[in-house]
């Protein structure tokens, strides 16, 4: 189940950040597993209940328009380990995803072509999980390198967007 989330669909947070994706998507229906945010401040992500432990990974991404955002990925330690990589795509590349891994790609500028068919614009995101392909071809479909954030949530077992 691929999930293509346009920038205008991200959840605005009171502190000025944005939630890109979370599992569970509807809070408090299921036990919290992971979430991914964009924030102006790497410690400014949405608070979790005091009793919830989390692992946190961050990466600073300079967007194509020159602004800077911090990508913040968090997970429940029992469910997954988060990581954030920042790439600059000048031409083409292929991302690999592990079994039991949820992978998110966030475009830092316009013109990111994924799988030859999904065109991502600034801050659009694509989520892959479960039965989705384990390799993901990316192409820069325009002028100049495109900053890309690749967020991985390596599951301790089966991991998805829907818990």
């Amino acid at each position: 189940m691929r999930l293509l989330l346009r920038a205008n669909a991200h959840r605005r947070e009171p502190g000025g950040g944005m939630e890109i994706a979370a599992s569970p998507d509807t809070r408090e229906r299921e036990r919290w597993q992971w979430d991914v945010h964009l924030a102006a401040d790497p410690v400014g992500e949405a608070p979790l209940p005091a009793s919830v432990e989390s692992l946190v990974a961050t990466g600073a991404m300079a967007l194509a328009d020159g602004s800077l955002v911090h990508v913040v990925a968090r997970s429940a330690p029992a469910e997954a380990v988060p990581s954030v990589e920042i790439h600059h795509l000048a031409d083409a590349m292929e991302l690999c995803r592990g079994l039991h891994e949820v992978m998110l790609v966030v475009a830092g500028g316009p013109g990111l072509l994924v799988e030859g068919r999904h065109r991502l614009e600034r801050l659009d995101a694509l989520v892959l999980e479960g039965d989705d392909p384990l390799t993901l071809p990316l192409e820069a479909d325009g002028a100049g390198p495109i900053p890309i954030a690749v967020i991985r949530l390596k599951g301790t077992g089966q991991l998805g967007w829907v818990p």
Partner: protein
Amino acid sequence: MFVRNAWYVIAQSEEIDRVPLKRTVLGEDVVLFRKTDGTVAALDDRCAHRAYPLSEGRIVGDNIQCGYHGFEYNCAGVCVRVPAQARIPERAVVRSYPVVESHRWVWIWMGDAALAKTAEVPDTHWMTDPAWDRVTHQRLFECSADLIHDNLLDLTHEGFLHESTIGDEAVYENGITVEVDGNTVSVDRWMPACHPSALFEKATGLSLADRWHTTVFQLPSLHVIHAGVVEVGGRREDGHLLRVLNAITPATENTAWYFYAFCRDFSVGDTALNELLAESLGGVLTEDSDALALQQVKMESRPANMPDVLIAQDAGVAKARRMMKQLLAAEFRAQSPAPEKVAAP
């Protein structure tokens, strides 16, 4: 709770004439009628005088006359005649609603009328485009509109509920791409090299095909399913194309109007195929209607601490539910009075 600032289908064009039509939408009773120029008027179905339903009255020119004491209202909902006296009370007014007639459906705006001017009625031109043919149905489902939205965003049910017509294992064996863009959720499923389902083998003559459906849900009411079949390896645009329009209008919290149009770009004018599709797809709607009515009963008796168990195929459902809540919350905030400022002592 309903999202009110949106266009909803309230009737098919042919339902509305010079006889008042009562219809309940978003929990409100509305009376509809055609004016002498053919356009449609929609008013609150309750006389301001003694709350008698205006739909029990009659049309007089471009006005509607209450059948109880004869109060007469114009299309703006303003009382223009009280038979028993010359003076017309200032409060003798009923609410009028913006309506638009477009491609054989009549749409109503139940929210802030000022906002209707800037919101476009969704595109349903396949209903009247001569390059397309169509069959239509209309039902009142005994379930909430939300259950119908869930049904349309998770078409894996076709493989079980509609096994004899449009569903098979190809639907649930193939994954989906869910896209969220503003107030639209789309769920795309590509089903390569499979049987095109029993009904579409009859309709197209293909026994093996690449097949797809993409449900595009324009919240809060309209699902357009872009579907089709094409010979294996062909391009989607060269296939037998379908546009399945599903306009869902809440009647009450647990009933909903379902306006359905199955439009195709092949065998246009084939009346035998129209009859086959009308009967088969009517059966599909009955299967849905029966199942969702049962689901509604179970939902109402289910403990609050036992929410649905969602799976990956429910991604569109989960996203749409959340977006619907956001729309409702935004309307609630807009209606709530701003907190009063307290002057410093």
